[in-house]
């Protein structure tokens, strides 16, 4: 599948984020990254990740899709407040590879998340992701934070 180029100059912040979410939902990581600024600031609090650049974002998405190949992203709300867009969604899938240190026990994951995007010039310049890693580990049958890889 080839990625569709984004008409970034005419996109509203909502459209830019919607394009990202649509691409993420269909596991088209190239298309999702296509709407990210080359200097995008990426913060994923549950992973302790604070980096700059599309490769950081690509890694976050790729790890999720690799860990949960049947990943389903169900967006419940997209809230636009100026150039800030908050997306509330549920991520669901069945673990098929190690993820965030948790070994694969083929458990089902369902996690409600909130991602806050800042959009400028039709591109995502900042993304901050919030979810609860306790909920994630609970669903993946992890018992202790200091022994995540031990089932």
């Amino acid at each position, binding site marked *: 599948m080839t990625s569709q180029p984004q008409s970034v100059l005419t996109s509203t912040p909502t459209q830019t984020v919607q394009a990202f979410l649509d691409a993420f939902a269909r596991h088209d990581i190239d298309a999702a990254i296509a709407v990210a600024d080359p200097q995008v600031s990426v913060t994923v*609090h*549950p992973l302790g990740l604070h980096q700059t650049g599309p490769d950081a974002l690509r890694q976050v998405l790729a790890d999720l899709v690799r860990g949960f190949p049947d990943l389903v992203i169900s967006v419940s*709300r997209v*809230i*636009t*407040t*100026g150039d*800030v867009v*908050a997306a*509330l969604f549920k991520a669901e899938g069945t673990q098929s590879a190690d993820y965030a240190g948790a070994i694969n026990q083929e458990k089902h994951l369902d996690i*409600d*998340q*909130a991602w*806050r995007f800042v959009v400028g010039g039709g591109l995502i310049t900042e993304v*901050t992701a*919030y*979810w*609860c*890693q*306790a*909920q*994630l*580990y*609970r669903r993946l049958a*992890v*018992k*202790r*934070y*200091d022994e995540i890889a031990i089932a």
Partner: protein
Amino acid sequence: MTEVSQRLRTAESAAGVVTEFFDRYREHDVEGMTDLCSINADFSYVPVELWGKQRVVRGDGKVGTVGKPLWTGLMASFPDLSNTVHAITSNDDGDVVAQVDIEGTQQLAWGLITPAGQHYREPHLFIFGVGADLLIDSITAYWNDADISQQLGHTEVD
């Protein structure tokens, strides 16, 4: 006849309500926080879930019945509970998005976490709905509870 002064809901006034909410939160004024909410305001602290043998108790419900006791309990367990508001954005429909750090030092048990005098500071994302009457009609919050547990010295997921 009494003249009623009523502010219009705009992006600015909605953000002002939320700013006031966190000011009152910082002052541990739970009644004042609740007064900023409509009588039936919805409440959802998404990470809150307690798994029992037969059911899961979640942090979902109403401000009056779930939010207020939860705030009161937090302030009892973390007497120096405070918040730092980093960004508040809003729109004319009354949607308000707030990036806020919550922090405190544990003095009493909180959930399954026994007090060890540890301090936590955790980034939160709050989504508020502010009604046309400039009362908060919904509060939803996201954060990473695992990070709080570990900062407080609790290494078990449950």
